[in-house]
Every structure is written in structure tokens, then in C-alpha cells.
């Protein structure tokens, strides 16, 4: 897949067809993974599709930079994460706030005891409840991007802290620190929502 400088400045038809073939395999094998990640980062389908296209376009152009010493999925996660941050900057969003640990420390028994009312349900059963699903999505979407990325990669995509560090250019300690704050934020949002008793009732949950 390595191309010479001449190839890049004036690509020949054979270069194009070779690149297209490699691209097709890459796209076929990984588009679902990239879309899932993009949807989790963006929170809605249209923005996620934009991010997928941006990611694969950058991957197409950067084949020669991929040295094969990382997993292809790690490489694509890295490209997608950077593209996501670039798209955010392009939209000129306000700078994001830092999450401090102190804001999540309960100051009363009541705050300590805030619960997510899903006792007795498996996570799959609990997530059949739309109210809970929406509350979870809202909480995750309210996270500042750099915290959200760590939570999505670690807790939703199931990567190790080391892999998340490689993707985001962070050491493991920084990954774990952001992850902890992100989880505390989501926990606080979910438990403070007053989601109601019905979530703990499987029959009600299934009706929704």
C-alpha cells in the first residue's frame, strides 16, 4: 500500500484501483465498528454518518502512514477520535469544562444514597425502559468530549486503558482519571433524575 511521492502527486489508474481495493476491504470489515463508535460519540445518526465518512476518507488518504504495528481497529478509532475533535472545533463550539472530582463527592447522606432504581433487573432488562435509556444517553451526551471519548472507548467499546491511551495520546493514569470522573458524572445524572419506581418493575419496563 506504500505509494511513492510521484504516485501521490499524479496517481495512476492502477494506483487508484489498488487503493480502491484495499479501501473496500477496510470499509467492509470496519464500517460497522466505526459507525457504532461514531454514533456513541455524536449521539445521533446524521452527525455519526458524517464522522464515519470523514474517518474513512482520512484512512483512505493515510494508508501509507499505517505501519501495521497497531491493530487496524485502533488506527481507525484514532482517526475517528481526531476527526471528531476537528469537527467540533470547526463548529466553533465553546471550550469545554473540566470535571473536578470534588463536584461528585456527596456532602450528605441523601446524596450518598442516591440510587439508580434498577435493583433486581439485569442491565439488558433495565435498558428496555425508554426513560432509563434516554436518561443514560442524555447523561453521556452532556459529558465534555474528552471525558465522553474515554467513557465510550473504555466502557462502551470495551477497550483497555492502555489502548484508550494510545488512541487519545494519553498515559494510562490520565485515562483512568478521566474515566473515573466521567463515570461519576453519569452516575450523578442518572441517580439525580428521579427516574421513578416503575423502572424497577420488570412488567412496566417491558411494556415501554
Amino acid at each position, binding site marked *: 500500500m506504500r505509494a511513492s511521492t510521484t504516485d501521490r502527486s499524479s496517481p495512476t489508474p492502477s494506483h*487508484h484501483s489498488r*487503493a480502491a481495493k484495499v479501501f473496500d476491504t477496510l470499509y467492509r470489515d470496519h464500517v460497522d465498528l466505526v459507525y*457504532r463508535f461514531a454514533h456513541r460519540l455524536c449521539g445521533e445518526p446524521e452527525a455519526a454518518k458524517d464522522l464515519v465518512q470523514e474517518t474513512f476518507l482520512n484512512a483512505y488518504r493515510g494508508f501509507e502512514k499505517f505501519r501495521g504495528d497497531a491493530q487496524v481497529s485502533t488506527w481507525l478509532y484514532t482517526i475517528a477520535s481526531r476527526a471528531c475533535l476537528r469537527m467540533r472545533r470547526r463548529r466553533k463550539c465553546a471550550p469545554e469544562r473540566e470535571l473536578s472530582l470534588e463536584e461528585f*463527592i*456527596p456532602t450528605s*447522606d441523601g446524596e*450518598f444514597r442516591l440510587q439508580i432504581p434498577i435493583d433486581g433487573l439485569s442491565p439488558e432488562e433495565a*435498558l428496555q425502559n425508554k426513560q*432509563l435509556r434516554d436518561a443514560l444517553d442524555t447523561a453521556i451526551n452532556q459529558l465534555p468530549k474528552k471525558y465522553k471519548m474515554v467513557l465510550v472507548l473504555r*466502557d462502551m467499546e470495551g477497550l483497555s486503558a492502555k489502548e484508550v491511551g494510545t488512541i487519545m495520546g494519553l498515559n494510562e493514569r490520565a485515562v483512568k482519571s478521566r474515566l473515573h470522573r466521567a463515570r461519576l458524572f453519569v452516575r450523578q445524572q442518572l441517580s439525580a433524575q428521579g427516574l421513578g419506581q416503575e423502572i424497577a418493575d420488570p412488567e412496566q419496563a417491558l411494556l415501554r
Partner: protein
Amino acid sequence: MAKRHTSTKRTRSSTTRHQHDHGKGRCLNILRQLSAYIDDELAGDICNEIRRHLGSCPNCEVFVSSLRQTVSLCRHRPSPSLSTDDRAMMRQNILKAAQIR
């Protein structure tokens, strides 16, 4: 559930208040390490120490349980999949953009 929660809080808060120095001290230390505890990343002795604390501190026990639930919900949150049409359309768009630029 909410009612039960309120009543247990009322009965337990007086018995546990002495164990807590909210925002400081022991519980604060434990809370800082809870993700590492949940992810099983702590050394055995620290783990045992936290386990002992959780056994004697209902507040921290509820807190860790809700944090575990949060992580578990994130892990199991399904994500929508792409339609065949979307997959094909995006592929076309990407190849077109790659030729133009």
C-alpha cells in the same frame, strides 16, 4: 422503592453519621479509588481495606453499587446499526471525495 429508601436513610443515618466526615477523610479516599476498585486494578491489601470499609459503611456501599450499575448500563447500551443503503451510500461519497480532493 423510594419510600423504603427514605425510611432506611432515616434509621441508618443516625447510626452511621459518626463514621462519616463527609467530603473528607476515609469515605473521600475510598470514593477516589472506586473506579479502580470496580475494574479490579488495585493491589489485594487495598482491595481488602475497601471491602472492609464498604461492609461497615452503608453510604459508600450504596455509592459503589450505583457506580457499578452505571458502568454496567454503559456496557450494555445497544447501539443502532447501519442500513445496507446507508453503508453503500457512504462508500460512494467517500470514494467520490477521495477522487476529487
